[in-house]
């Protein structure tokens, strides 16, 4: 090979840009070995080591804050945007790990590989958030997804978990195919997979909207993303997968990977397809309304809490899409803020559910929570706060998040979209309230008796609670950070 070319290529390599995912992957591989050489059934130390790995990675990725690092010929960049989403994913992973250990012991699957898999997923998510080339984004997505397929089906003795893993795998693979095909078509038209290269090409192309191949490619690409964020009508996998997967993994899926998918989504649409704004927002307008409405209305009739939260997470993806429709600074910042908030509030709610579940009976029904508010008053209040935040009631963070997103929509002139959004929030009140009705208003049932309190899960709940309350009462600094990270 030409020596000059190699040298040039090496100059472009900048390991700083991929340091966070690199560190996390190395940790993951080491921990795989650690878990192999650990006695059977002992996983607590692996859990704590992977928690430490996440903290270390957090510090490493902070290096990119206000200090953007581009690498690998501009296909990866560690900028504020990537850092913000990486932090969100790391927080989600951290909370997952904290609530997992005792849960795995209880359910009888204390297997060490679980934690490295979470680390790999997170590395993939961070990779995705920092990808500025469709190929790197795709790589990140695959690393993220493959580990998640395994995690969703982790309880190999349980039919539900198997079903979740398999469903997620088939549909996920299918959607990845869409995405990749879209990348290929776009490459065929534009001759590049770099996002800014595509942007330049589209800008220079006068008839970009009449180029069938380009439009088809763009649509396939967006379909792939919409599948990952579980937007309607690509949401069908969500309820089954969320219900069947181990509860901490469900919590993680709803927060970390979704945030990463939104990160790539935002980068590709707002930077790469900027000149197609009018067309894309028209499509997203419909999709946002559809996603919010489908999620909320189907959630109304759910009896299983996990399934209900799965549908609610669809509707939350719809709220986030509203920010994308707004296509302005507030909207995008709103999505970033909202993803962080959602991580805290949704994972907090799941952490409480992890505690109140029973072995083998972890598919909690809403009625099964009857009397919980009296038997475990503190836990009850905490779950209420998370639910109020999911509803978007002030003074919790959920309100601040929704406010910013809808503010972005109103500022951009999408008043009706904001109206539909708040009416959807009103619908969502009913099913969140139902949980509280069961916890407090029903006569104390005999059903609820079981809580396996443990320190690690308690810590995760406290962290999530602090997040929800602090970001609700003083959202300014966090919003400021998200603003610095947005475009």
């Amino acid at each position: 090979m030409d020596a000059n070319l190699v040298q040039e290529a090496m100059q472009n390599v900048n390991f700083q840009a991929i340091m966070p995912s690199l560190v996390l992957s190395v940790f993951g591989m080491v921990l795989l070995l650690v878990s192999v050489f650990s006695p059977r059934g002992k996983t607590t130390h692996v859990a704590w080591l992977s928690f430490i790995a996440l903290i270390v990675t957090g510090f490493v990725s902070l290096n990119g804050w206000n200090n953007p690092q581009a690498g690998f010929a501009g296909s990866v960049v560690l900028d504020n945007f990537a850092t913000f989403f990486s932090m969100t994913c790391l927080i989600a992973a951290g909370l997952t790990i904290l609530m997992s250990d005792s849960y795995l012991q209880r359910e009888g699957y204390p297997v060490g590989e679980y934690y490295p898999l979470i680390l790999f997923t997170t590395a993939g998510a961070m990779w995705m958030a920092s990808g500025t080339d469709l190929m790197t984004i795709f790589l990140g997505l695959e690393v993220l997804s493959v580990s998640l397929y395994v995690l969703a089906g982790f309880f190999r003795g349980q039919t539900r978990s198997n079903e979740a893993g398999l469903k997620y795998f088939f549909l996920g693979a299918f959607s990845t195919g869409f995405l990749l095909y879209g990348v290929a078509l776009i490459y065929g038209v534009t001759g590049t997979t770099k996002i800014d290269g595509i942007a330049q090409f589209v800008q220079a192309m006068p008839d970009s909207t009449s180029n069938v191949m380009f439009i088809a490619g763009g649509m396939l690409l967006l379909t792939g993303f919409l599948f990952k964020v579980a937007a309607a009508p690509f949401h069908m996998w969500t309820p089954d997968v969320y219900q069947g997967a181990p509860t901490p993994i469900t919590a993680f899926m709803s927060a970390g990977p979704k945030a990463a998918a939104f990160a790539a989504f935002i980068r590709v649409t707002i930077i790469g397809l900027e000149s197609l704004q009018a067309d894309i927002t028209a499509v997203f307008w419909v999709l946002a309304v559809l996603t919010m409405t489908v999620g909320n209305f189907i959630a109304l009739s759910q009896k299983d809490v996990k399934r209900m939260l799965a549908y609610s997470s669809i509707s939350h993806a719809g709220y986030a899409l509203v920010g994308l429709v707004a296509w302005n600074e507030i909207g995008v910042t709103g999505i970033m803020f909202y993803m962080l908030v959602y991580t805290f509030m949704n994972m907090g709610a799941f952490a409480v559910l992890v505690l109140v579940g029973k072995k083998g009976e972890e598919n909690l029904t809403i009625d099964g929570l009857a009397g919980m508010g009296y038997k475990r008053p503190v836990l009850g209040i905490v779950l209420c706060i998370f639910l109020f935040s999911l509803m978007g009631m002030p003074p919790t963070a959920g309100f601040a998040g929704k406010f910013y997103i809808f503010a972005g929509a109103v500022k951009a002139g999408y008043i009706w979209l904001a109206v539909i959004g708040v009416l959807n929030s009103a619908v969502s009140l009913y099913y969140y309230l139902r949980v509280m009705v069961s916890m407090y208003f029903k006569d104390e049932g005999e059903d609820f008796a079981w809580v396996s309190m443990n320190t690690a899960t308690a810590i995760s709940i406290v962290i999530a609670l602090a997040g929800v309350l602090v970001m609700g009462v003083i959202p300014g600094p966090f919003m400021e950070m998200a603003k610095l990270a947005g475009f």
Partner: protein
Amino acid sequence: MADHLLSIMTFFPLLGMLFILFIPRDNDGLLKGFTLVVTLITFVISLPLAFNDVFTTSGGMHYKEFSEWINIDGFFQMNYNLGIDGISLWLVMLTTFIMPIAVLSTWKAVDKNTKGFMALLLLLETGMLGAFVSLDLFLFYIFWELMLIPMYFLIGIWGGKNRIYAAVKFFIYTAVGSLLMLVAIIFVYYYALQSGAPINGFGIQEFYMLDLPYNAQYWLFLAFGFSFAIKVPMFPLHTWLPDAHTEAPTAGSVILAAVLLKMGTYGYVRFAMPLFPDAVQTFIPLLATLSVVGIIYGSLVAMMQEDVKKLVAYSSVAHLGFVMLGIFAMNLQGMAGGIIQMINHGVSTGALFLIVGFIYERRHTRMISEFGGLAHKMPIFATIFLIITFSSIGLPGTNGFVGEFLALVGAFESGLRWYAVVATTGVIFAAVYMLWMYQRVMMGKITNPANENLSDLSVREIVVMMPLVLFVFWIGIAPNTFFEKMNPAVEQLLNQMNNNKVAVVEIQQPVVANLLETK
């Protein structure tokens, strides 16, 4: 301290609530006593407001507090912006005054989960006070929503048989309205920013100065007005109220009637009308009609109730109709009458719910047919009940007369003359349903043996009622105490609405799409 009086007053109950969390849950007496002390101290903190003569001379905002809360450059700014004028003054006083009474009423009535009950009461008080003193729309919205949560649990946990239905209905009705208001609030803010108005936040005093185009006002008033109309509640959005009132525990009903319903009428006076003065003109015929329908409908339905508490609940719908009619008269008498009628309704309907609570605690039923001849066994109770009944009817000499009379006079002198004429029949209806109920419950011979051994009011119960009776006469005989502090603020409000009005606005079909560039 005077600089932060409003903050201290607003957040003192919240502080108390945090302390309550550390009191053992089975120590009922301590929990109730502590809550009573907290609410009494809050009342004492608020007293200097009532005795401050500045309200008699100036109708503007006093006791102002201002600090930046959230400021994100280029996005938005929210401020911690408090203040009080002669209108909110009396509502604040009503709130701090009614809370100790509500707490006292729980002494025997609440024995399950007292800790939670007291904590929620105090949280509710912070929410209510905060909503009355907020001068920033965003801050107001937060307090407004904050009130919902404790009330939801008060009804849902300590309520009657249908509590779940009532609590969820209450929550969803109110929240739907306020969510639409939220979009309107955001819109006003961005409209103001884009039109280059000198605003630095969601401050309503700056928003008052905006020159919003009529078509924008139309929709914004709809959003605000809808939200407040649910809270008032105006016919036909009132259906949550009888359910909530009937199912709520006594203390909850008292607070709901005395303060929470006033949030709706206060919202009209403070926000919906002065912010959108042109749109109000368009909606006055509709709103006045609904008020009058509410008066007549509420009275007629109240007449037919078998349950005392339901009767009082429907009478609220009628009373609030008078308040709204007075406000929409848009003149000094009407406005002042409407606002004093808010206070009156708080005092007399609050008292009526307490009275219903007294007999319910004794007999565990509220059916009118179960009672009869109670006056023989409970003379003190009979006297107090009669006074409150007169006050609710609006007999001269009691507070109800002052408010209803002024509201009706105001309406009569404005363009709402015929509305006032029809509404006046409501006063007669009120006499019918209240006196008929009083007669069936208190007069005659004791026909039901279960009523033979009823005890008269205890000292605690008399202590609970006395302050309310005092205000029935105080407002009834010397209303000037209240008007002299209220009128400057009302006048200023009216002037400002008239100045802001863009000449005479033709009522036209709004073509909002062009003006707002809605996508």
